[in-house]
């Protein structure tokens, strides 16, 4: 009996969900995604044109019920990062056995990580690289490296804004956004299958989950990947100096945070 908490049922997330719902150990499924199914989703998603205009979480819930009607589904059309969603999302995370993150936004990944670590739950993350040249499947455990440790180890860039256009010294205020090359459905499906397998291992409770970062190459790209269809396994350590997951030196009770912050900002408030 396992309860899953999944954020994102886009083209990758729905394939992960489709793989996981077949496992008889899964009895509860919470799905979070605020998006509406749009015409441009159709060619890489499970659902036909007739589903355009419906909430993706409702489509995902229907899909689960068609295959496993006994699974209890919570379909939540919420923004993971919206302040008004936090209480509901936190309760769902507290009740789950493990989390799955299937969103692209870096900020959402950091937030998901913080949520799952707060509740001491393991979670997994799938990432398809631009152009579908490969992708990652990561597994996180409460005592292992956080997403910040992993992103830092992999030297990931955090952009000023997810939609910011690129800066160019010859054109400091460009009008066009950075291009991200869409991945094919086949590439998305390959990484989703890897993500699903890495997730299912956690359900085998006889083996304690371990942190894991797997890279699967799907295309040969000069200067990036020497060959297609290679896997790379990374043993990424938890950073003892990580500002996101290392233990704080002075624990502060939650009820004292506002007062402590007011005092601290008053000390720094001189002009």
């Amino acid at each position, binding site marked *: 009996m396992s309860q899953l908490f999944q*954020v*994102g*049922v886009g*083209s*990758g*997330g729905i394939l992960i969900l489709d793989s996981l719902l077949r496992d008889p150990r899964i009895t509860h499924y919470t799905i979070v*995604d*605020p*998006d509406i199914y749009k015409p441009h989703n159709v060619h890489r998603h499970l659902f036909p044109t007739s589903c355009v205009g419906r909430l*993706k979480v409702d489509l995902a819930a229907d899909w689960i019920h068609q295959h496993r009607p006994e699974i209890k589904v919570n379909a939540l059309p919420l*923004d*993971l*990062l*919206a*302040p008004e969603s*936090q209480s509901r999302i936190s309760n769902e995370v507290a009740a789950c056995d493990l989390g799955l993150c299937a*969103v*692209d*936004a870096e*900020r*959402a990944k*950091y*937030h998901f990580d*913080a949520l799952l670590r*707060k509740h001491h739950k393991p979670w997994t993350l*799938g990432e398809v690289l631009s152009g579908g040249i490969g992708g990652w499947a990561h597994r996180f455990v409460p005592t292992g490296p956080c997403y*910040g*440790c992993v*992103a*830092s180890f992999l030297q990931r*860039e*955090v*952009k*000023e804004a*997810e*939609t910011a256009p*690129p*800066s160019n*010294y*010859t054109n*400091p*205020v460009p009008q066009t956004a950075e291009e991200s090359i869409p991945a094919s459905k086949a590439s998305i499906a390959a990484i989703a299958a890897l993500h699903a397998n890495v997730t299912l291992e956690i359900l085998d409770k006889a083996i304690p989950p371990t942190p894991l970062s797997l890279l699967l190459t799907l295309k040969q790209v000069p200067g990036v990947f020497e060959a297609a269809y290679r896997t790379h396994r990374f043993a990424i350590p938890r*950073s003892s100096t*990580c*500002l*996101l*997951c290392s233990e704080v*030196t002075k624990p*502060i009770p*939650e009820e004292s*945070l*506002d007062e*402590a*912050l007011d005092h601290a*900002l008053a*000390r*720094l*408030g*001189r*002009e």
Partner: protein
Amino acid sequence: MSAIVVDMGLLDTELGKRRLLTIEIPAIEKYNDGRDPEFRISATRVGLSLVLRYDLKPMHNIYRLETRLLSSYPSVPPDTRILSPMKHCPHLLEGQTLCLWRQGSVRATSRWDPSKFTAVFAVQAAWRWLACYEIWHETGEWPLPEAK
């Protein structure tokens, strides 16, 4: 996969407040400790952002700056702009915002890392930028070739 981008609170969530109280504010107080009062960092709330104001003197001149920690900080890097009047410079963006963590940069030092950096790192990066600016102002050459 879908993208979710909505502001999330540095000043109005437990996680954000803990980051400020245990990491950012101690780092700012350490920076201020023993420093001349006119060069200390001050911090004020502006809506859901925390705004740091400070003066820097990298070489010959004193500059007034503002570093804004947005609601989405630290997963989104701080934004620093110079309040003092500046000569037009190709490395200065709209609103006299410093080109520090911009997308498209290939420099390792332009990569914002929320697991390693605090707002004081942004202040130090601004100091380095201003030192480059003064050299550029005198010589016409930006001293970090990889930033061109």
